[in-house]
Structures are given as C-alpha cells and as structure tokens.
C-alpha cells in the first residue's frame, strides 16, 4: 500500500470516527440521561444537513456562519423535542418509541415531499488539497476531522468539569437518587437534548459536504450510532470514543477489500463475539 493511500485511509478513518462519535455521543447521552432510544436522532442528523444546505446554498450565507446557525437552530428544535415530545412520556418506553418513530416518519416524508429525494451536496467548507511529503490529502476531510475532534473534546470537558455535566453523569447512574439530591432532571434533560441535536446537526452538515444529503441519510447514521453504543457498553460514555474509533477505522479500511454488505457482516460477527464474552459491552459495568 502506498504511503499516500495509507495516509488517506488514516485521515478517512479518523474523520469518519469523529463524525460517528459526534452522533453516537449525542445518542448515548440521551440514552443514559433520559433512557430514551432516540430513533429520531437519525432525522436530526439529516435535517441538520438540509438546514445548512438551505442557509449556505439557497440563502447564500457564509458557510461557516451557516454551520453555526444550523447548530443553533437544530439545538433549539431539541428544546422543543424534549419539552413536548419526550417529557410528557418520561418512563413510558412504548409511547416514546412510537413518538420517535412518528418524528422520523413525519420529518423524512415532509422533507421528501417538500424538496424531493434527489441527492444534493453541500459545497465544500474548505476546498483544496494539501501536499506534504509526496502525499496529498483533502483539506475538507482534515478540517472535518479537526472540528469533530474539537467538539468531542469540548463535550468530554463539559461532562467532566462542569456542574451540569456532572449532574448528567449522576442522573445516568441513578435518576431517582439524583432527583432526591435536588438535581432538576428536566432541565438537565433539556440541555442534553440540545447538545445532542446540535452535534448531530453539525455532523450532518459536515458529512453533507463530504458525501451528500438526501432525506434518508439519517437511517445509515442511526445504525452506526447504535452499533457504537452497543460496543461501548452499558452506561459508558467514554467507551463511545473507543468504539467509534474502531468502527470508523473498519468502515474506512474494509471497503477497500470487501463490499459494503460484507463489511457489515464482519462487523456483526465481531459484535456477537464481543457480546458472547462480555455481555456488558467493551467498557460497560456488570449488568
């Protein structure tokens, strides 16, 4: 394998991992703080991409500004989600699942009906190529990688160092105990939802520039997020990083030798093996 190919695969792996991690972290956050299997995360990712497209292409707003605006807009949508779609049904798994599925259906078909299902691309955020040591790498992917990593680090810092982040950890371990200690679960859940949605939206926009956007790109991402959370293990937000890296690397390298479907099959085999020996996931605690 030529050094250039190796470098490109490495960058791809890291970039893909960082995007997966952004989405998976949000998903894991909602799962551990609110015990919600948020299928709707798929459409949040997709909607983020579309809003960025709208702002940057249709309204001609500066791309980086569009990115920030997208995060803000979708983040506030997260507030609406938590308040009116999740909070009324806290604890009732069945209804929440139906609710998130309803959201997927409504948003996917609304977008599909409104703007059509053909594939578009968001214009590149950082066009061009870097050449160094005889190896050329896409600036776009490098920048995405950097943004993804930065956001991930910020989130980790937020969880470990800020009061609200600590509250989130507390709730994820024992929600009743946390409430008894005076933690406002609703407020923390709202913040968690906002963060998760904003991150997913950013990922959708960045990936929309590298790949494309269409109404159903979210489905693919949702699966990745779920696989990562399974691999990471019960209650482990840190494990998401490791699992995300593993999956990103697999998805960046295996397609060079196997077809897409076979890659998934290999991944499945790995997950089954892992679960056989460690039912609680790679980094989880005993069930």
């Amino acid at each position, binding site marked *: 394998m030529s050094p250039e190919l190796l470098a490109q695969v490495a960058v791809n792996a890291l970039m893909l991992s960082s995007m997966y991690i952004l989405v998976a972290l949000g998903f894991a956050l909602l799962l551990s703080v609110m015990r919600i299997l948020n299928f709707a995360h798929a459409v949040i990712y997709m909607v983020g991409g579309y809003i960025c497209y709208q702002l940057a292409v249709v309204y001609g707003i500066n791309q980086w500004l569009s990115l920030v605006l997208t995060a803000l807009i979708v983040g506030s949508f997260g507030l609406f989600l938590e308040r009116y779609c999740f909070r009324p049904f806290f604890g009732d798994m069945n*209804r929440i699942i*139906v*609710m998130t599925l309803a959201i997927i*259906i*409504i948003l996917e078909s609304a977008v599909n009906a409104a703007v059509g299902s053909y594939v578009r691309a968001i214009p590149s955020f950082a066009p061009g190529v870097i050449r160094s040591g005889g190896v050329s790498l896409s600036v776009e992917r490098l920048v995405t990688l950097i943004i993804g990593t930065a956001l991930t680090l910020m989130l980790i810092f937020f969880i470990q160092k800020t009061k609200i982040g600590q509250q989130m950890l507390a709730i994820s371990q024992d929600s009743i105990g946390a409430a008894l200690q005076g933690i406002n679960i609703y407020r923390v859940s709202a913040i968690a939802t906002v963060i998760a949605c904003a991150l997913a939206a950013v990922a959708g926009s960045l990936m929309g520039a590298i790949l494309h956007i269409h109404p159903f790109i979210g489905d693919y991402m949702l699966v990745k997020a*779920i696989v990562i959370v*399974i691999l990471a293990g019960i209650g482990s937000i840190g494990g998401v990083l490791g699992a995300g890296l593993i999956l990103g690397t697999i998805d960046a390298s295996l397609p060079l030798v196997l077809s897409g479907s076979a890659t998934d099959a290999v991944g*499945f085999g790995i997950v089954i093996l892992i*679960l056989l020996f460690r039912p609680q996931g790679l980094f989880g605690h005993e069930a």
Partner: protein
Amino acid sequence: MNLKSKLIKPTGLASLVILLFLLPLFVKQPYYIHIFIVTMLYIIVVSSLRTIALSGQVSVGHAAFMGIGGYFSGVVAKELGLTPWLTIPLGGLAAMLIAVLIGYPFTRVRAIYFSMVSLFGGIVIVDIIRVAQKWTGAAGLAGIPPLSPINIPGLINITFLGQKVPYYYFTLALTLVCLLILYRVEHCRVGMTWKAIAQSHLVASSVGINEAWFRVLALAVGCFFAGIAGACYAHYNLVLAPTTFGFLPSIFLVMYMLVGGRDSFAGPIIGTAILLIVPELFRWLKEFAPLILGAIMVIVVFLMPQGIAGLFDQIKAKYGQVRNRKVPENAA
C-alpha cells in the same frame, strides 16, 4: 360477567371471520384483495413480534426473519424444484433455526440493549442476504414459483398462478391458524412464564424459571411464524427485494405493534390493519401519504396510552366513572 357480555366477544369474532370469508364476493378489484392478503401476512408477523415481546424482548430486527423465511423458501423452491407447500414450513424452520443460533448470546442482554442489538442483527441478516447474490439475485430474487395447484381429481382443482382469490383464502386460513396457535401459546403456562420473566427476571429465576431458555423459546416461536409469513409472501409476490426486510420495515413492525397496543392480543392485529389500510385510502396524496401515518401515530401516542386496542378499555373506564357517580343517589 353475565351471559350477555360473555357472548358478545365470540359472536363479534365469529361474525368478523364470516365476513372475511365472504369478502371476495363483494370486493372484486384485485388490488383491494391484494391489500387484504398482504395485511393478513403482516398481521401474522406483527403478532409473532408481540409474542416475543411478551418475554420482555422487543426485537427491532423482526422483518429480517420474514426475509429469511421468504428467501429460503423461494430459493429452495426455485433451485431445487420443490413444491412451495413443502418449502414454506421449511422457511419457517430456517428462520427459527437462525433465531435460536444468534439469539442465544442476545438473551443475556437486558431490555433496551436487546432492542438495539436486534436492530443491528436485522440489518446484518439482510446484508448477508444481499452478499449471497449468487442465489438471491443482484437486486432481488425473481422467478419464485407460486403455490402449486391443489388437485384432488373429482373434488377440487385450485390453481394459484395468476389468481388472487385462492391466495386470499389460503392466507385467511393460514392467518386464523397462526393466530390461534399464538393465542394458545400465550394463554398457557409458557405465556405466563414469559410474562413473569418480563416483569422480574430475578423473581422468575428464584422460582426455578430458566430465563435464558425461555427467552430463546420466545425468539424461536416468534421467528418461526415470521418465517412462515415471509415464505408465503414470497410465493405470493413471486419476487423479493432485500429492502422489504430491512431496518425501516423492522421499525415499522414495532410501530404497528405499539400503536395497536402491546398489552392485548388484538393490539397487533388492529394496529397492523389500521396502519396498513388507512394510508392506502390516502394514496392519492402521493408523497404526503406517510404524513397521515405520522399523524395517526402522534394522535395515538398522545391520546391512547395503551394503543388503539386499549381504547375500548379507556372508554369503559371513563364511562364507568361517570356511571358510578350516579349510583349514590339510588343506593339504599
């Protein structure tokens, strides 16, 4: 319960069944018969999903097992020339076998994690089907033989090829039999044991219930019927596409069950029927049609905590409250 209320349910059911048997006399358009056939097959699948859910395991990959049954039966019938009457039960068994094999490690996983893992499992099964292109075809499986004709000389001669009505009756009979079996299983000891495990696995094991064994059993039973339905679908549709059994269809199955009502046996039946038939009525909306689906779901989520099937109980409870308030005036 007085005699009158005891008779209402069975009479209602009997009338419904009779109506269904007589349906082809009134409804002639093949398209509508088709809708009924497909709906009935999905009713079997969603009911079997609920059977698995009785044990506390909500599988979000169930459509894949429908696919295993369909592809197995279709391929074997097509390549080996066996009659579908034989390959359909084989399809069910194939689905059951796979469920047991990959199900065992998943039975150690708790509730929500089981759902996530089953979702992943469903996707991978379909991927494997796609990868096995040599048998399953690049974009799908075509050329599946229809149900072979039933020919008892002097008595009956039924051809299935090109006809919808024979398929309708076959599916109706099959659905009734499958639902009957699922109902019996749920209401005997096994069903009670499943429900016990779902409520508290700790207490269940403390009375000697082997949790893992029963969870695998639930998977086996549920996936068997999904496989059968899938196989019948294959020999009805004569073509299969992998997307029919993927991630989104699996999620829809869960949705049909939840919207109909997870707590009652009729739930999946009602949910599937409404969510499959109502959007058909709105077909003229084209790409806006799914929004109707979404709207129904939102209404159900906000107004009916036990799903549509629970609506009757909800009304009864509310009506009962109103009635009781009047009683004190008449009480001695």
